[in-house]
């Protein structure tokens, strides 16, 4: 292996690692606020990219139907919940809010589907539609069991992953798609050809990591959001509703995941079932960061991306074996240096 190949592999590893890092951020954020491990983050990524691909081909993506259906369900759930609490008036308002906004989005998306608007509008709509799936999932699936054990939340998250994969197959078919790049330009640094798209991936990842670290680490509101996972009552006393915090973190995470999809959509082909293995690698990064630290999670993700790139050169048949065997010592090391609380049942 000469230097130019090493440089190409490093570039490839870093680009993929940056995507894993963004997913890791979404996972860390959702876990820190809700204790849910967002297994379907990968599906949100693929749905984001495939929605954009559908717009690009002039179709109305199936996501529209999904969002509309989930919106109606969420509206009903919210109305029933509030009515049971005796908030008759606010029941209607809540239902209108939860069903109304996503339904309006879906209607707009259905209108623009066949119209081939500029790429920026299509990207914005793909992000908004997929982003809407986040809070809707929270409302329908996780809010009723927000205080269950981490294991139960994890299993439910896996079930959501099944549902979304099955629906993605129905909406988008078994074959993959690529999306148009933001920029198809590239330039040479010595022997290395660098595409603007992959630089874009890196830049946005770095930006998102910094922004999230600042928000959760430095602002009072961010800190309070973090506290909801540890102490739901305490957060309520600080004026943060845990339910709102959950919905907010799911919304941010869903947009972030969809954004990942839009970023790598032009670089690689995505399929209805691509999400799981990508989110698994993001999960590796998130865990290396102890599900708490954003910069460490990003570093872990880059590490995974790099091993992957180099092992696919050296021994492609054993790539996954190498990647997943190498992370075990890292996990062991991280586990030994991380301070653990014994979790109560």
């Amino acid at each position, binding site marked *: 292996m000469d230097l130019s190949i090493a440089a190409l592999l490093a570039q490839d590893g870093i680009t993929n690692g940056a995507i894993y890092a963004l997913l890791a951020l979404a996972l860390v954020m959702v876990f820190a606020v809700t204790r849910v*491990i967002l297994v379907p983050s990968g599906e949100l990524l693929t749905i984001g990219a495939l929605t954009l691909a559908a717009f690009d081909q002039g179709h109305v993506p199936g996501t529209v139907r999904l969002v509309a259906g989930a919106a109606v369900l969420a509206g009903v759930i919210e109305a029933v919940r509030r009515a049971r609490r005796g908030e008759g008036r606010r029941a209607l308002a809540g239902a209108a809010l939860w069903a109304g906004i996503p339904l309006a989005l879906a209607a707009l998306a259905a209108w623009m589907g066949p119209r081939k608007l500029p790429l920026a509008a299509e990207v914005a709509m793909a992000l908004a539609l997929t982003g809407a799936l986040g809070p809707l999932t929270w409302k329908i*699936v996780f809010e*009723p*069991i927000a205080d*269950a*054990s981490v*294991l*139960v939340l*994890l*299993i*439910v998250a*896996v*079930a*959501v*992953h*099944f*549902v979304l*994969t*099955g*629906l993605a*197959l*129905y909406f988008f078919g078994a074959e993959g798609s690529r999306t148009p790049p933001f920029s198809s330009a590239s330039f040479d640094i010595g022997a290395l050809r660098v595409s603007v798209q992959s630089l874009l991936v890196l830049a946005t990842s770095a930006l998102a990591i910094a922004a999230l670290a600042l928000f959760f680490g430095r602002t009072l509101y961010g800190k309070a959001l973090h506290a909801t996972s540890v102490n739901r009552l305490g957060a309520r006393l600080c004026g943060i509703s845990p339910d709102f915090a959950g919905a907010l973190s799911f919304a941010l995470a869903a947009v972030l995941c969809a954004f990942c999809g839009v970023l790598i959509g032009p670089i690689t082909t995505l399929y209805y079932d691509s999400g799981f293995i990508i989110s*698994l690698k993001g*999960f*590796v990064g998130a*865990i290396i960061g*102890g*599900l708490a630290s954003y910069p460490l999670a990003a570093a872990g993700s880059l590490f995974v991306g790099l091993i992957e790139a180099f092992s696919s050169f050296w021994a492609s*048949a*054993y790539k*996954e*074996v190498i990647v*997943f*065997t190498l*992370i*075990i010592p890292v*996990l*062991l090391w*991280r*586990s*030994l240096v*991380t301070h*653990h609380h*014994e*979790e*109560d*049942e």
Partner: protein
Amino acid sequence: MRSGAGLGRLCSTPAIIAFIAIAMALLPLIAPPFWVTLANYIGLYTIVALGLVLLTGVAGQTSFGQAAFVGLGAYTSAWLSTAHGVSPWIALAAGLALTFVVALALGFITLRMRGHFLPLATIAWGLSIFFLFGNLEFLGGHTGMAGIPALSIGTIELKDERRMCWLIWLVVVAALWTMHNVLDSRQGRAIRALKGRLEMAEAFGVDGARLKIVVFVYAALLACISGWLYAHLQRFVNPTPFGINQGIEYLFMAVVGGAGSVLGALVGATIITLLKQYLQDALPALLGTSGNFEIVVFGLIVIVLLQRTRDGLWPWIDRLLPHAKPPPVPDAAPLAARVQPAAASTLLEVRAARKAFGGLVAVNDLTFALACGEIVGLIGPNGAGKTTTFALLSGALAPTSGDVRFRGHSIAGAAPYRIAARGIGRTFQHVKLVPRMSVLDNVALGAHLRGRAGFLRAALRLDRREEARVRAEAARALARCGLAEFVHAEAQNLALGQQRIVEIARALAADPVLLLLDEPAAGLRFHEKEALAALLRSLRAGGMTVLLVEHDMAFVMGLADRLIVMDFGEKLAEGVPAAIQSDPAVLEAYLGGAPT
């Protein structure tokens, strides 16, 4: 009343297992063949899920990697019996041996991980082993190995699915029965304490790290047997049934069925298998054949199910069944007791013990001694280092420097379970009972080191005599503490004050020489405190030594023979209560004189 008790007994776990045994013996004779097919797979899945109940549900170690062990069992037998013509029964032994070694190695490395590191590590090695199967050419690669022979017992070939059904369910019933027995035993109590109560379990002599590995290996061996049966039922193996998706599905079964109970594994495996089968038949009729909604509807049903019954289905069913009232604990010969050392001899010496956390010195060169048969109070303002001192004595923390000697031996830095074996019993500032376990079992856990029964004896029910003595001992300890009426209650249902007393009973069941009590009177009502004081005095009269941390000054002044006062990690004063009460330095510390 009587029929109610009879019905209750019929709904006990052993009775249900016996019923399953009979039902599954008859099923192949009377049921349509496809039922037998399904029953076979349910049986195979139950065996794996049962391992997960033990590992994940009870011991709290989440594993996504069980499918890899199933693969080890299946591939070992497939390869040996096709490529080398080895008898499948010998291949089973080989598979178990291989699984044992692999699980031991993996367990040794990964079970040190805590929190979310462990589940991810199980995904990691699960995937690694899966891709290894696909890349080894002698194992048929991704395409797989065909022509695996059917099992035979003597001259009877088990090619027929009905015959396999009997064999599979024989294994299932044996696994259910032995697992039920293990959980209802000395080792079972220790395993249940692993989940979130490791520190407590170790304080009563449980070697937590070793026990986790034992549990892990046990679950892996069950998975291996399931894989062996799978290979000879299917007579074809390829990597897909041993991948991460199947690993997730096993965990699904355990959680949906009820990961905390033996029968949860059976219920989970049955429900998931039948649900998928039913959806495959029913959905095309409902929704047409244009899409595949099985996985979608399946996921939705699991979500709704867990929203309704988050502990899984079996606990929910179990609540609907009648239950016989547990009989009073029969008396039995007492367990061998420790000889208490001679009164007034030195029992414990702390010599210049120091504990620093980074730059913060929590305990600063502390020196004191305890004589046999005295009650000593360790007091001081919040943050004085009392709890850290306790942790140094019980082995939860190792001192940075200095020494702790107990009955002439250094115990500084020794593992908690070794210190427990030397005769130190303790309670915790924050109550650490196993919440879903009965009060009696919680206390019996205290007597862990006084029994000997291991897994095998427990699994085969050969531990009953010893177990009866342990239970009687626990009941006596509870009676002594005035909690006889709560013997069969779930620990989590007791008031906090009562839970503190249960902690003392548990420490007593360990037959300690030295009792370390961390704020035993907190949360107790006045007459409860009086009873506690009386209990501690009677223990002293029996020769026991007690060191207690306490904030309730009236309580500790009236009870203790001596007091040691700590402040800022150092010993401030030591003496009889009356002297301490008038010590100016103590008053300064307590009444908030500014340090000069």
